[in-house]
């Protein structure tokens, strides 16, 4: 039987379902003041609203009354060797409580060092030492935040030192040891599979998919060197949709979120993409129904 914290992480998504969209200021007003949208939830970067007054927090308050919100942080820096930033965690806890998010997630990476904030997601060495250290830190963070906590697999462009284990094993062992949920980013899986030359489907099979609490999907950019950068600045491509379907067939109905952070198109265009994600989601969910084979 699973421990309570494991159940919390896995069942947190029960209060969140369907297909969501990453909230951007470019369309915040349309969402707040416009007609109801076919979007099941919005994901919010809390750093954009913490320790802040004025227009955007006021709009977010209104949005909270219309849609479910879930928080996804950018600067927790769970893998950093600096001590955790207590002040930030306290602020984050308050923001999470204010927004009523069912769980909070951040990235399995470091984004600060020696007191300096890098504002990007930098890789960790896939080492035994980091499995233990980061997992212990993630448990402490969850206890401070007061809600279930999940970690996202990141895109990375360089292995930091000689890996002691494959990336999938590193991700799996950190989330298992920390009893955290897994926020599975299928675009990151695709990006890494191209940049580091591995089979993305084998990667997915190596993950503890029963721990997935949410799936992210996004677009990316291919540079002249052939390297793919996880820009969240383009439409999702077909191979990433295929990975989404493959993952959903194994996770069941977890919430799926479309991220678009750069070159953000008009909301109507994004909603078309949300509709495409939803069609994949619905098709897979129908295929998972017990009587699907008979009725097909």
């Amino acid at each position: 039987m699973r421990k309570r914290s494991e159940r919390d992480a896995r069942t947190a998504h029960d209060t969140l379902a369907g297909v969501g969209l990453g909230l951007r200021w470019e369309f915040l007003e349309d969402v707040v003041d416009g007609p109801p949208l076919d979007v099941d939830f919005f994901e919010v970067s809390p750093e954009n609203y913490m320790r802040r007054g004025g227009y955007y927090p006021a709009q977010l308050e209104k949005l909270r009354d219309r849609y479910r919100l879930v928080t996804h942080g950018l600067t927790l820096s769970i893998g950093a060797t600096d001590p955790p930033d207590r002040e930030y965690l306290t602020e984050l806890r308050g923001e999470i409580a204010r927004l009523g998010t069912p769980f909070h997630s951040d990235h399995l990476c470091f984004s600060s060092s020696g007191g300096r904030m890098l504002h990007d997601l930098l890789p960790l060495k896939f080492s035994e030492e980091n499995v233990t250290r980061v997992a212990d830190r993630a448990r402490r963070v969850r206890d401070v935040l007061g809600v279930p906590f999940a970690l996202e697999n990141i895109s990375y462009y360089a292995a930091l030192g000689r890996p002691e284990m494959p990336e999938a094993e590193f991700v799996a062992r950190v989330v298992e040891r920390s009893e955290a949920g897994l926020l599975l980013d299928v675009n990151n899986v695709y990006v890494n599979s191209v940049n580091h030359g591995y089979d993305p489907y084998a990667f997915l099979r190596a993950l503890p998919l029963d721990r997935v609490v949410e799936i992210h999907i996004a677009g990316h950019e291919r540079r002249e060197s052939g390297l793919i950068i996880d820009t969240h600045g383009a439409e999702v491509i077909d191979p990433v949709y295929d990975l989404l379907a493959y993952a959903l067939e194994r996770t069941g109905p977890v919430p799926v979120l479309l991220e678009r952070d750069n070159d953000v198109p008009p909301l109507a265009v994004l909603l078309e993409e949300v509709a495409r994600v939803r069609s994949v989601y619905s098709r897979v969910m129908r295929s998972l129904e017990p009587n699907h084979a008979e009725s097909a």
Partner: protein
Amino acid sequence: MQKALESALTELVLGAPLAANDAEAFRAFLSRHGVTDDDARALVEQGLDRLLVYRSLVRDTLEHALEVAMPRAIARLGPLFDEYFSRFLAEHGPTTHYLRDVASEFLNFCEPLWANDGRIAPYLFDLARHEALRIVVAAAPPGQAEPDAALDLDAGLRFTEAARLVHYAYAVHELPDDVDDRTLPERRETHLFVYRGPDHRVRYLALTPLAASIVDHLLRGASLRRSLLAATAQHRTELSEAVLSGTARLLADLSERGAVLGPCRERLTPDGKPS
């Protein structure tokens, strides 16, 4: 082990550039950061190019945050901006979780340096600070209103947390918004009261030197009486009926604009001075 790798990658991102094709220099760099031989070998085999992706990603994000905050000052600085941006990253670096605060950290770093750099026009710091202030005020946390109470000469005033009083040597607030414009600002002592209105818009109010002095003392926590006495003494002006009525009109105006929340207890330091 992670600490050495983290330190090396951070330095690679924020510090002086390393030549991508100089493996020897890369090895020496990793060794300086205490990276183990095996990890260093793996990183050299992989090539510096892959790690340098992080240098461009991090720097692009931070540079964009500054461009959003102070576009006209950056355009006028030209290549000098790149020089000071690199120095900021290498010698200080951002320490905030909030991208919106990076511009303030950058300007705090630059202020003493620009004052001693003859290549930088004297008005440019005022312009940069003035531009960056818009986001600071727009995003300042909300203040708590005091319970209703009448204005009292021996009480202080609580301002909204978004209120700022700034002093410039140049009238940079009168420059056109166009980033390509190169009009020089008039050299004129300028005092601006900057606040966020109830509609969330950032607004600017030019004050006379005496009014600025009174507001300055009030913002520091002094009572209205102490603020009036200190400001008039500072400006060698009598505390006349005209000064009193002008101050009353100004405070009523600021209250109406939502910048003054109400009276509050005077905040004094242990030696009896406004805090």
